[in-house]
């Protein structure tokens, strides 16, 4: 598209937009290397890794209380893992069901999608009220967990729906009619085609649940998850330990993303080579 000076102008605008997107994180990362005496702002008194040590419990205790990183991290990871397993299972089952035409598919579709549309604070409130009335104790692994699935299941469902829409059942049938066993058909044909979708759905569910706090706030009970621990710092003064924490969690998420990327590449790479083989055979 050629439109005179508009193109370079939009390019510069996009660069500025990216600066707007990344600016705060860059500042936060720089300030995480503030010294013990420095506050959560410029100038940097002295470059140090004090706040990282503080975060990991390696520095001597100071006036700044420590973030409960260890326990809450473990809880968040467990919760995200449980959520991922359940929502990917539910999402795959529902998407598979949607391959058959049935009456009432519209309302069911919207019921599932509603889970990602309703604000977290609302379902959280509703669940807390329900738990109160029924006399159920609220905990991260019970009341918070079911809401996490309510949130991530629609995403898993949509991803799997997209995968199934492209999935040609005749390939599977062809494989079996050629005498390949059911187990081997699943392993060699069905699974490789579905796997990238399952992986994407899992990544979606995991990251959404790992970072979820609005639904968790009223439903987690006494034990905090990681986002709740961060949210706890909102009302009090902010120290650079939370910045150091931000940098570490970002690095963690990136590791996750890279693993996902590598797995994806391996699988899609393998898939294209099979398709090439099929074309050759044809």
């Amino acid at each position, binding site marked *: *598209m050629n439109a005179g000076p*508009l*193109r370079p102008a*939009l*390019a510069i*605008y*996009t660069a500025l*937009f*990216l600066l*707007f*997107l990344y600016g*705060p*994180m860059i*500042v*936060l990362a720089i300030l995480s290397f503030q010294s013990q005496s420095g506050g*959560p*702002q*410029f100038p940097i008194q002295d470059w140090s890794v004090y706040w990282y040590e503080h975060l990991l419990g390696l520095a001597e205790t100071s006036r700044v209380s420590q973030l409960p990183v260890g326990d809450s991290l473990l809880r968040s990871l467990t919760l995200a893992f449980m959520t991922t397993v359940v929502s990917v299972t*539910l*999402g795959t*089952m*529902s998407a598979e*069901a949607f*391959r058959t035409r*049935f009456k009432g598919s519209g309302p*069911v579709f919207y*019921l*599932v999608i*509603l889970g990602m*549309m*309703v*604000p977290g*604070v*609302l*379902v959280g*409130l*509703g*669940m*807390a*009220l*329900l738990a*109160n009335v029924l006399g159920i104790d609220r905990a991260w692994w019970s009341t918070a967990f*079911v809401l996490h699935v*309510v949130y991530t*299941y629609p995403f898993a469902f949509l991803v799997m729906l997209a995968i199934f829409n492209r999935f040609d059942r005749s390939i599977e049938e062809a494989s079996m009619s050629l005498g390949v066993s059911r187990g081997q058909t699943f392993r060699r044909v069905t699974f490789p085609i579905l796997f990238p979708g399952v992986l994407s759905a899992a990544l979606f569910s995991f*990251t959404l649940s790992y*970072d979820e*706090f*609005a639904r968790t706030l*009223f439903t987690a009970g006494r034990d905090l998850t*990681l*986002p709740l621990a*961060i*949210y706890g*710092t*909102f009302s009090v003064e902010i120290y650079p330990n*939370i*910045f150091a924490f931000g940098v570490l*969690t*970002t690095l963690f998420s990136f590791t996750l993303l890279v693993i996902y990327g590598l797995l994806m590449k391996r699988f899609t790479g393998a898939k294209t080579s099979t398709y090439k083989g099929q074309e050759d055979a044809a």
Partner: protein
Amino acid sequence: MTSTAADIATDRRTSPAVIRQNKDRRRALLLLSPGVIWMTLFLLLPLCMVVYVSFWTQTTFAVEPTLTTASWQQFLSSPTYLSAIWTTVRIWAIVLTATLVVGYPVALYIGLFVQNKTLQTALLVACVIPFWTSFLIRVIAWRPMLGTEGAINTILLKVGLIHEPLTFLLFSEFSVLVGMTQIYCVFMVGPITFMIGRIDPSVIEAARDLGASFGTIFRRIVLPLSLPGVIVGAIFVSVMVLGEFATAASLSGRKVNLLGNIIVSQVGSLKWAFAAVAGVVLTIIITAVITLALRVVDLRKEM
């Protein structure tokens, strides 16, 4: 006549295709039931509970299931709560406009002007990467940016543009608006880029061959075809901004009270009935906004 109909009916029931169809349908319902039950128990039931409890009787530290409209009356006659409704709607409208104004040109550039597929993907990934940082950390990151001793003030002072630090940057409605715009604008950029990227290049080519200027092409082709993306983005942004409370809590210094903040603070002081009233009001607003959005564009047709 009736016997013929009955014969056809039995035929239908016993024909292999119908049997198979029925089997498929039963299997589909079986596969669906866990999800439907889950959503009914843990989504619909809690939401009904919110409506129900909004009519309960609120005493100082407890709620009783005696039905009354007292909470509603108190809510709708309190200037604090009414102003929270107004603030929520105002912030929603401003952030929605801001994300659209800030995001559309970016989407236009990535979707229409970048022809290199690799660069296009790279730019989109660059927009999404910040989402792998915790939402709450992204909110907090604005504090060292906007504070009186923050990055922006430091830079402006060094450059000599200002002599006194700007104080309106943090702990104001401004900081909430900037924070939300940055956090949510990607939900606008993504769907719009997707829609613009789907436009058949030959349509634009044809328009240009027929002598249309870029302005005309934009107005008559690109803008209308990107509209579904705008609506999808608007729904995403609306749902998230209307349910917000964390950004306001962290960046406004309690100056900005959204309905979400009211819910959180009322739950904190065990005023469940008031929290429920605020919840119902929020639901009404969100339903109205989404219904309006879906009036403009039929999403199922576009998918």
